[in-house]
Protein backbone atom coordinates (compact mmCIF):
# COMPACT_ATOMS: atom_id res chain seq x y z
CA UNK A 1 0.00 0.00 0.00
CA UNK A 2 1.30 3.49 -0.85
CA UNK A 3 1.98 6.26 1.65
CA UNK A 4 -0.90 8.19 0.07
CA UNK A 5 -3.30 5.29 0.57
CA UNK A 6 -2.21 5.07 4.22
CA UNK A 7 -3.07 8.76 4.64
CA UNK A 8 -6.47 8.29 3.00
CA UNK A 9 -7.29 5.32 5.23
CA UNK A 10 -6.15 6.96 8.45
CA UNK A 11 -7.87 10.25 7.65
CA UNK A 12 -11.03 8.46 6.50
CA UNK A 13 -11.28 6.58 9.78
CA UNK A 14 -10.70 9.73 11.80
CA UNK A 15 -13.32 11.61 9.77
CA UNK A 16 -15.87 8.81 10.18
CA UNK A 17 -15.11 8.62 13.90
CA UNK A 18 -15.44 12.35 14.44
CA UNK A 19 -18.79 12.54 12.65
CA UNK A 20 -20.08 9.43 14.46
CA UNK A 21 -19.09 10.91 17.83
CA UNK A 22 -20.86 14.17 17.00
CA UNK A 23 -24.02 12.28 15.98
CA UNK A 24 -23.86 10.24 19.20
CA UNK A 25 -23.67 13.45 21.21
CA UNK A 26 -26.66 14.91 19.41
CA UNK A 27 -28.73 11.78 20.05
CA UNK A 28 -27.72 11.82 23.71
CA UNK A 29 -29.07 15.37 23.96
CA UNK A 30 -32.38 14.21 22.46
CA UNK A 31 -32.55 11.30 24.91
CA UNK A 32 -31.85 13.65 27.81
CA UNK A 33 -34.88 15.79 26.89
CA UNK A 34 -37.11 12.72 26.38
CA UNK A 35 -35.90 11.34 29.74
CA UNK A 36 -36.76 14.62 31.49
CA UNK A 37 -40.23 14.62 29.99
CA UNK A 38 -40.80 10.97 30.94
CA UNK A 39 -39.84 11.97 34.48
CA UNK A 40 -42.24 14.90 34.34
CA UNK A 41 -45.12 12.55 33.41
CA UNK A 42 -44.14 10.40 36.40
CA UNK A 43 -44.20 13.52 38.60
CA UNK A 44 -47.74 14.36 37.39
CA UNK A 45 -48.85 10.79 38.15
CA UNK A 46 -47.35 11.00 41.64
CA UNK A 47 -49.15 14.30 42.22
CA UNK A 48 -52.40 12.77 40.97
CA UNK A 49 -51.97 9.87 43.40
CA UNK A 50 -51.69 12.47 46.19
CA UNK A 51 -54.99 14.02 45.09
CA UNK A 52 -53.68 16.83 42.90
CA UNK A 53 -55.57 16.78 39.58
CA UNK A 54 -53.58 16.50 36.33
CA UNK A 55 -53.92 19.48 34.00
CA UNK A 56 -54.48 18.17 30.43
CA UNK A 57 -52.59 21.21 29.06
CA UNK A 58 -49.48 20.11 30.92
CA UNK A 59 -49.73 16.65 29.37
CA UNK A 60 -50.26 18.19 25.92
CA UNK A 61 -47.11 20.26 26.44
CA UNK A 62 -45.10 17.14 27.34
CA UNK A 63 -46.50 15.29 24.34
CA UNK A 64 -45.54 18.15 21.99
CA UNK A 65 -42.01 18.21 23.44
CA UNK A 66 -41.56 14.46 22.94
CA UNK A 67 -42.87 14.68 19.36
CA UNK A 68 -40.44 17.53 18.68
CA UNK A 69 -37.51 15.46 19.94
CA UNK A 70 -38.58 12.41 17.92
CA UNK A 71 -38.58 14.55 14.74
CA UNK A 72 -35.19 15.96 15.71
CA UNK A 73 -33.74 12.46 16.23
CA UNK A 74 -35.27 11.27 12.95
CA UNK A 75 -33.50 14.08 11.06
CA UNK A 76 -30.21 13.27 12.79
CA UNK A 77 -30.52 9.57 11.88
CA UNK A 78 -31.46 10.35 8.25
CA UNK A 79 -28.27 12.42 7.97
CA UNK A 80 -26.29 9.63 9.55
CA UNK A 81 -27.76 7.10 7.16
CA UNK A 82 -26.89 9.22 4.10
CA UNK A 83 -23.36 9.59 5.45
CA UNK A 84 -22.99 5.86 6.14
CA UNK A 85 -24.29 4.96 2.67
CA UNK A 86 -21.77 7.27 1.00
CA UNK A 87 -19.31 4.38 1.37
CA UNK A 88 -21.55 1.96 -0.59
CA UNK A 89 -19.91 2.66 -3.96
CA UNK A 90 -16.33 3.66 -4.72
CA UNK A 91 -17.32 5.67 -7.79
CA UNK A 92 -20.79 7.14 -8.26
CA UNK A 93 -22.46 9.95 -10.18
CA UNK A 94 -23.57 12.44 -7.56
CA UNK A 95 -25.00 15.94 -7.31
CA UNK A 96 -22.32 17.92 -5.48
CA UNK A 97 -25.08 19.90 -3.74
CA UNK A 98 -26.37 16.71 -2.10
CA UNK A 99 -22.87 15.88 -0.83
CA UNK A 100 -22.49 19.44 0.44
CA UNK A 101 -25.83 19.06 2.27
CA UNK A 102 -24.65 15.86 3.98
CA UNK A 103 -21.46 17.47 5.24
CA UNK A 104 -23.18 20.72 6.28
CA UNK A 105 -25.87 18.84 8.23
CA UNK A 106 -23.26 16.65 9.94
CA UNK A 107 -21.08 19.66 10.76
CA UNK A 108 -23.80 21.96 12.11
CA UNK A 109 -23.43 20.89 15.72
CA UNK A 110 -19.63 21.17 15.56
CA UNK A 111 -19.99 24.63 14.02
CA UNK A 112 -22.48 25.70 16.72
CA UNK A 113 -20.01 24.63 19.42
CA UNK A 114 -17.53 27.04 17.82
CA UNK A 115 -20.27 29.71 17.64
CA UNK A 116 -20.23 29.63 13.84
CA UNK A 117 -23.17 29.44 11.41
CA UNK A 118 -22.96 27.42 8.21
CA UNK A 119 -24.91 28.84 5.29
CA UNK A 120 -25.27 26.70 2.19
CA UNK A 121 -26.18 28.87 -0.79
CA UNK A 122 -28.58 27.14 -3.22
CA UNK A 123 -27.05 26.74 -6.66
CA UNK A 124 -28.92 27.36 -9.93
CA UNK A 125 -29.12 23.69 -10.84
CA UNK A 126 -27.61 20.28 -10.08
CA UNK A 127 -23.83 19.98 -10.33
CA UNK A 128 -23.24 16.37 -11.31
CA UNK A 129 -19.85 14.65 -11.11
CA UNK A 130 -18.52 11.10 -11.10
CA UNK A 131 -16.67 10.81 -7.83
CA UNK A 132 -15.90 8.87 -4.67
CA UNK A 133 -18.64 10.30 -2.41
CA UNK A 134 -16.90 9.47 0.89
CA UNK A 135 -13.55 10.96 -0.16
CA UNK A 136 -15.34 14.10 -1.36
CA UNK A 137 -17.22 14.44 1.94
CA UNK A 138 -13.91 14.02 3.78
CA UNK A 139 -12.26 16.69 1.63
CA UNK A 140 -15.16 19.11 2.13
CA UNK A 141 -15.00 18.54 5.89
CA UNK A 142 -11.25 19.26 6.06
CA UNK A 143 -11.72 22.48 4.08
CA UNK A 144 -14.73 23.43 6.20
CA UNK A 145 -12.79 22.77 9.43
CA UNK A 146 -10.02 25.10 8.27
CA UNK A 147 -12.57 27.64 7.04
CA UNK A 148 -14.18 27.76 10.47
CA UNK A 149 -10.82 28.71 11.95
CA UNK A 150 -10.47 31.41 9.29
CA UNK A 151 -14.00 32.79 9.47
CA UNK A 152 -14.45 36.57 9.60
CA UNK A 153 -16.26 38.66 12.23
CA UNK A 154 -19.72 37.74 10.89
CA UNK A 155 -18.97 34.16 12.14
CA UNK A 156 -20.74 32.64 9.11
CA UNK A 157 -19.10 30.33 6.57
CA UNK A 158 -20.91 30.30 3.21
CA UNK A 159 -20.75 27.21 1.01
CA UNK A 160 -21.63 27.17 -2.67
CA UNK A 161 -21.36 24.55 -5.43
CA UNK A 162 -21.40 25.61 -9.10
CA UNK A 163 -20.37 24.27 -12.48
CA UNK A 164 -17.74 26.52 -14.06
CA UNK A 165 -15.78 25.70 -17.27
CA UNK A 166 -16.54 21.98 -17.12
CA UNK A 167 -15.51 21.78 -13.48
CA UNK A 168 -17.50 21.45 -10.31
CA UNK A 169 -16.39 24.21 -7.97
CA UNK A 170 -17.09 24.25 -4.24
CA UNK A 171 -16.37 27.60 -2.59
CA UNK A 172 -16.08 28.43 1.09
CA UNK A 173 -16.39 32.18 1.62
CA UNK A 174 -16.51 34.94 4.26
CA UNK A 175 -13.13 33.83 5.57
CA UNK A 176 -11.99 37.23 6.82
CA UNK A 177 -9.14 35.82 8.92
CA UNK A 178 -7.48 33.93 6.02
CA UNK A 179 -4.54 36.37 5.77
CA UNK A 180 -3.70 35.67 9.45
CA UNK A 181 -3.82 31.88 9.10
CA UNK A 182 -0.69 29.67 8.83
CA UNK A 183 -1.19 28.99 5.12
CA UNK A 184 1.97 26.91 4.93
CA UNK A 185 -0.04 24.25 6.81
CA UNK A 186 -2.98 24.26 4.38
CA UNK A 187 -3.53 22.32 2.25
CA UNK A 188 -1.85 19.64 4.38
CA UNK A 189 -0.95 16.07 3.34
CA UNK A 190 -4.46 14.82 4.07
CA UNK A 191 -6.11 17.39 1.80
CA UNK A 192 -3.47 16.78 -0.86
CA UNK A 193 -4.01 13.01 -0.74
CA UNK A 194 -7.77 13.48 -1.14
CA UNK A 195 -7.33 16.01 -3.96
CA UNK A 196 -5.04 13.57 -5.74
CA UNK A 197 -7.53 10.71 -5.32
CA UNK A 198 -10.35 12.94 -6.66
CA UNK A 199 -8.19 14.58 -9.37
CA UNK A 200 -9.07 17.95 -7.94
CA UNK A 201 -7.39 21.29 -7.28
CA UNK A 202 -7.59 23.82 -4.48
CA UNK A 203 -7.24 27.61 -4.50
CA UNK A 204 -6.81 29.73 -1.38
CA UNK A 205 -7.57 33.41 -2.10
CA UNK A 206 -6.59 35.50 0.92
CA UNK A 207 -7.78 38.76 -0.72
CA UNK A 208 -11.27 37.47 -1.45
CA UNK A 209 -11.39 35.41 1.76
CA UNK A 210 -12.28 32.20 -0.08
CA UNK A 211 -11.15 28.60 -0.45
CA UNK A 212 -12.25 26.82 -3.63
CA UNK A 213 -12.07 23.17 -4.64
CA UNK A 214 -12.30 22.32 -8.36
CA UNK A 215 -13.21 18.82 -9.53
CA UNK A 216 -13.59 17.44 -13.06
CA UNK A 217 -17.22 16.76 -14.06
Amino acid at each position, binding site marked *: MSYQWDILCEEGLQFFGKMS*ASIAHEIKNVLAVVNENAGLIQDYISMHERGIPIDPEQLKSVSRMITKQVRRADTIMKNMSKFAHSTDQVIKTENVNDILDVVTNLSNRLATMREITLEKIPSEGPVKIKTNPFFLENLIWLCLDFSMDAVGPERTVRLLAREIDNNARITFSQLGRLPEMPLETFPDKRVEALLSALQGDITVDTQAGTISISLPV
Partner: protein
Amino acid sequence: MTNAQSTPSQIKILAVDDEVDFLNTLSQRLESRDFQVATASNGEQAIKEAKTGGFDVAILDLKMPGMDGQELLKILKERHKFLEIIMLTGYPSVESAVECTKLGAFGYLEKPYDLEKLLGVLKDAYETRLKKKFPHDQKRMRELEMLASGDPMAALSAMMRLDDLEK
Protein backbone atom coordinates in the same frame (compact mmCIF):
# COMPACT_ATOMS: atom_id res chain seq x y z
CA MET B 1 -33.75 33.55 65.07
CA THR B 2 -36.00 31.73 62.62
CA ASN B 3 -38.67 29.44 64.04
CA ALA B 4 -37.37 25.90 63.45
CA GLN B 5 -40.91 24.68 62.81
CA SER B 6 -41.64 27.17 60.00
CA THR B 7 -41.31 26.27 56.33
CA PRO B 8 -37.58 26.28 55.48
CA SER B 9 -36.31 28.64 52.83
CA GLN B 10 -35.72 26.99 49.51
CA ILE B 11 -32.35 25.70 48.35
CA LYS B 12 -31.29 27.90 45.46
CA ILE B 13 -30.01 26.15 42.36
CA LEU B 14 -28.50 27.60 39.22
CA ALA B 15 -28.99 25.26 36.22
CA VAL B 16 -26.94 25.93 33.09
CA ASP B 17 -27.42 24.15 29.74
CA ASP B 18 -27.57 25.30 26.11
CA GLU B 19 -30.39 22.78 25.46
CA VAL B 20 -33.28 25.01 26.47
CA ASP B 21 -35.92 22.25 26.28
CA PHE B 22 -33.87 20.12 28.69
CA LEU B 23 -33.19 23.08 30.97
CA ASN B 24 -36.86 24.09 31.24
CA THR B 25 -38.03 20.57 32.10
CA LEU B 26 -35.22 20.05 34.64
CA SER B 27 -36.13 23.37 36.23
CA GLN B 28 -39.82 22.39 36.39
CA ARG B 29 -39.06 19.06 38.05
CA LEU B 30 -36.76 20.59 40.66
CA GLU B 31 -39.22 23.43 41.41
CA SER B 32 -41.98 20.87 41.99
CA ARG B 33 -39.67 19.47 44.70
CA ASP B 34 -39.47 22.87 46.36
CA PHE B 35 -36.09 23.97 45.03
CA GLN B 36 -35.74 27.56 43.84
CA VAL B 37 -34.26 27.33 40.35
CA ALA B 38 -32.71 29.93 38.09
CA THR B 39 -31.57 28.98 34.61
CA ALA B 40 -28.95 30.18 32.15
CA SER B 41 -28.33 28.91 28.63
CA ASN B 42 -24.69 29.96 28.38
CA GLY B 43 -21.63 30.72 30.48
CA GLU B 44 -21.81 34.51 30.38
CA GLN B 45 -25.45 34.48 31.50
CA ALA B 46 -24.58 32.02 34.30
CA ILE B 47 -21.79 34.25 35.61
CA LYS B 48 -24.20 37.23 35.72
CA GLU B 49 -26.87 35.18 37.53
CA ALA B 50 -24.37 33.81 40.05
CA LYS B 51 -23.14 37.32 40.92
CA THR B 52 -26.43 38.34 42.53
CA GLY B 53 -28.27 35.04 42.93
CA GLY B 54 -26.84 33.70 46.20
CA PHE B 55 -26.99 30.13 44.92
CA ASP B 56 -26.26 27.06 47.02
CA VAL B 57 -25.59 24.58 44.21
CA ALA B 58 -25.06 24.90 40.45
CA ILE B 59 -25.74 22.22 37.84
CA LEU B 60 -23.64 22.77 34.71
CA ASP B 61 -23.71 21.11 31.30
CA LEU B 62 -20.16 20.24 30.24
CA LYS B 63 -20.39 20.82 26.48
CA MET B 64 -21.76 24.24 25.55
CA PRO B 65 -21.03 26.61 22.67
CA GLY B 66 -18.58 29.38 23.49
CA MET B 67 -17.60 29.11 27.16
CA ASP B 68 -17.82 25.41 27.98
CA GLY B 69 -18.82 23.90 31.32
CA GLN B 70 -15.26 23.33 32.47
CA GLU B 71 -14.29 26.96 31.92
CA LEU B 72 -17.47 28.09 33.66
CA LEU B 73 -16.78 25.72 36.57
CA LYS B 74 -13.33 27.29 37.08
CA ILE B 75 -14.72 30.85 37.04
CA LEU B 76 -17.63 30.10 39.38
CA LYS B 77 -15.40 28.29 41.90
CA GLU B 78 -12.96 31.21 41.89
CA ARG B 79 -15.70 33.78 42.52
CA HIS B 80 -18.09 31.85 44.79
CA LYS B 81 -16.15 29.69 47.21
CA PHE B 82 -19.18 28.17 48.94
CA LEU B 83 -21.00 27.32 45.71
CA GLU B 84 -20.98 23.56 45.10
CA ILE B 85 -21.14 22.48 41.48
CA ILE B 86 -22.46 19.33 39.81
CA MET B 87 -21.44 18.64 36.19
CA LEU B 88 -23.81 16.97 33.73
CA THR B 89 -22.59 15.48 30.46
CA GLY B 90 -23.83 13.28 27.63
CA TYR B 91 -20.25 12.36 26.80
CA PRO B 92 -18.55 11.32 30.03
CA SER B 93 -14.89 10.35 30.21
CA VAL B 94 -12.48 9.56 33.03
CA GLU B 95 -10.21 12.39 31.85
CA SER B 96 -12.91 15.05 31.99
CA ALA B 97 -14.24 13.74 35.32
CA VAL B 98 -10.75 13.99 36.82
CA GLU B 99 -10.23 17.46 35.35
CA CYS B 100 -13.58 18.72 36.66
CA THR B 101 -12.85 17.28 40.11
CA LYS B 102 -9.47 19.05 40.14
CA LEU B 103 -11.26 22.30 39.28
CA GLY B 104 -13.57 21.81 42.26
CA ALA B 105 -16.66 20.06 40.89
CA PHE B 106 -18.60 18.23 43.58
CA GLY B 107 -20.26 15.71 41.29
CA TYR B 108 -20.17 14.46 37.71
CA LEU B 109 -23.27 12.77 36.26
CA GLU B 110 -24.03 11.31 32.86
CA LYS B 111 -27.06 12.39 30.80
CA PRO B 112 -29.71 11.05 30.65
CA TYR B 113 -29.53 10.90 34.45
CA ASP B 114 -31.64 9.30 37.15
CA LEU B 115 -33.43 11.98 39.20
CA GLU B 116 -33.07 10.10 42.49
CA LYS B 117 -29.32 9.99 41.87
CA LEU B 118 -29.26 13.74 41.18
CA LEU B 119 -31.25 14.44 44.36
CA GLY B 120 -28.78 12.33 46.32
CA VAL B 121 -25.83 14.29 44.90
CA LEU B 122 -27.69 17.58 45.56
CA LYS B 123 -28.16 16.54 49.18
CA ASP B 124 -24.48 15.69 49.56
CA ALA B 125 -23.43 18.92 47.83
CA TYR B 126 -25.62 21.05 50.11
CA GLU B 127 -24.28 19.21 53.17
CA THR B 128 -20.72 19.95 52.04
CA ARG B 129 -21.63 23.59 51.51
CA LEU B 130 -22.94 23.87 55.07
CA LYS B 131 -19.86 22.19 56.52
CA LYS B 132 -17.58 24.58 54.64
CA LYS B 133 -19.64 27.63 55.56
CA PHE B 134 -19.87 26.81 59.25
CA PRO B 135 -16.73 24.77 59.96
CA HIS B 136 -16.60 25.53 63.69
CA ASP B 137 -20.13 24.55 64.54
CA GLN B 138 -19.55 21.07 66.02
CA LYS B 139 -23.17 20.60 67.07
CA ARG B 140 -24.32 21.27 63.52
CA MET B 141 -21.71 18.85 62.21
CA ARG B 142 -23.01 16.06 64.45
CA GLU B 143 -26.59 16.76 63.36
CA LEU B 144 -25.53 16.70 59.73
CA GLU B 145 -23.79 13.35 60.16
CA MET B 146 -27.03 11.91 61.54
CA LEU B 147 -28.93 13.16 58.55
CA ALA B 148 -26.40 11.83 56.04
CA SER B 149 -27.98 8.40 55.60
CA GLY B 150 -31.58 9.63 55.30
CA ASP B 151 -33.91 10.00 52.32
CA PRO B 152 -32.41 12.79 50.15
CA MET B 153 -35.47 15.10 50.19
CA ALA B 154 -36.08 14.68 53.95
CA ALA B 155 -32.40 15.21 54.67
CA LEU B 156 -32.30 18.35 52.52
CA SER B 157 -35.37 19.71 54.27
CA ALA B 158 -33.80 19.13 57.69
CA MET B 159 -30.48 20.63 56.60
CA MET B 160 -32.26 23.74 55.42
CA ARG B 161 -33.88 24.10 58.84
CA LEU B 162 -30.42 23.89 60.43
CA ASP B 163 -29.15 26.48 57.97
CA ASP B 164 -32.11 28.74 58.75
CA LEU B 165 -31.30 28.61 62.49
CA GLU B 166 -27.91 30.11 61.67
CA LYS B 167 -29.44 33.14 59.88
